[in-house]
């Protein structure tokens, strides 16, 4: 395999594919149940290999990754309950495909944060890019800043909370789950949503196809207050509820196997 050396001494595949060396770097500082990974001189694959090594093989439950340097695809595919803290900002696709971890990001993130997350939680102290929580299946995703376009696109479960504003087509093709957007949302809120609920605290530029206002219930208030308390988000703002108008709601006519895709 062709490879090139960089100034930092890190070797990359010359075709732009994966880091060719599949061995974890063994650089984490482990102290009992906690560990620190300094990502400064590590490639994405090396960081993830080291993270998986200490979580799976060493049984460490509290991992801090310092100097993530906005590298992409960090913390993906962790399928075990543990606590992961990023001191700094990961890039695109951070914490995708996770099932169980509770992640704290003390920075900002790029697009597609926690896409396909199955369970666990991800809390971001700053803003997040577009496609935040794409195809989210379960768990909680909390962004304390703004989020970009198509937040929760194809969301099939779980909860997305943004304390700031959201971009266009928020909740696009949403199929289940809940979103709480405390700020404003741009055009096309909930476009083509089939199910799920979106709560909005600010102004809405326009609603998407088949997204209609709903009526707040006691269960809605209990849910919102509980989530704000769990994540210490203060008092929730006055929220409007939006849900599917069910004009496009025709799952019963579909094959049973297709119905299951959204459960």
């Amino acid at each position, binding site marked *: 395999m062709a490879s090139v050396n960089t100034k930092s001494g890190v070797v990359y595949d010359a075709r732009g594919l994966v880091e060719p060396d599949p061995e974890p770097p063994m650089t984490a500082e482990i102290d009992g149940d906690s560990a620190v990974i300094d990502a400064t001189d590590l490639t994405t694959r090396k960081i993830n290999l080291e993270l*998986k090594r200490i979580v*799976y093989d060493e049984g460490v439950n509290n991992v801090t990754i310092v100097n993530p340097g906005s590298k992409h695809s960090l913390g993906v*595919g962790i*399928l*075990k*309950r543990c606590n992961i803290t990023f001191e700094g900002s990961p890039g695109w696709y951070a914490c995708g495909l996770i*099932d*169980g*971890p*509770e992640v704290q990001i003390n920075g900002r993130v790029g697009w597609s944060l926690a896409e396909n997350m*199955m*369970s*666990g*939680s991800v809390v971001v102290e700053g803003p997040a890019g577009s496609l935040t929580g794409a195809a989210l*299946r*379960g*768990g*909680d995703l909390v962004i304390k800043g703004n989020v970009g376009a198509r937040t929760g696109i194809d969301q099939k*479960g*779980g*909860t997305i909370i943004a304390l700031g504003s959201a971009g266009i087509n928020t909740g696009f093709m949403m199929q*289940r*789950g809940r979103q709480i957007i405390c700020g404003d949302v741009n055009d096309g809120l909930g476009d083509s949503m089939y199910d799920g609920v979106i709560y909005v605290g600010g102004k809405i530029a326009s609603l998407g196809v088949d997204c209609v206002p709903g009526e707040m219930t006691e269960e809605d208030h209990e849910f919102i207050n*509980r*989530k704000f308390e*769990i994540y210490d988000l203060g008092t929730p703002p006055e929220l409007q509820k939006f849900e599917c108008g069910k004009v496009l709601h025709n799952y019963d006519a579909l094959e*049973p*196997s297709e119905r*299951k895709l959204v*459960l």
Partner: protein
Amino acid sequence: MGVKHTVAIDAETLAGKRFAYQEDISLIEDIDLMELTPGKDLNWLEDIHLLVEDGTPAVFDRNSNSFLKIYFDIPEGRGDEIARKVLMKHLISGNSYGIQLKEKHCKFHQVELGPWVADSKSVGDNWVPPVLDGWEPPLH
């Protein structure tokens, strides 16, 4: 009790048998849902609800894309709670067909029983692609 085969795929069809906790509520009452889920509430289980499949109360198991039917009487007002407990009993017991497939077919490392069981064994570390008997790779 025999397994009734229907058009839909359900968990007992995949397993070839019905599980005791589908018929006896006492076997799932001690399941601690908070203990089994991340965070300070039910987390992903919040999306699990009591459904109906083939006219029978059921819970959906996304790990095997199948319904797990519940045959005992469900106390009023406890539908979702019972559905979640039956599902978790099914998962932590390793009886979900999706979990059983991991041992043979999982291509990458993961914990066999999922994140809800601490210290579950690893699977997928030594996967090798299956080869048909008599097949040889082409020369070119």
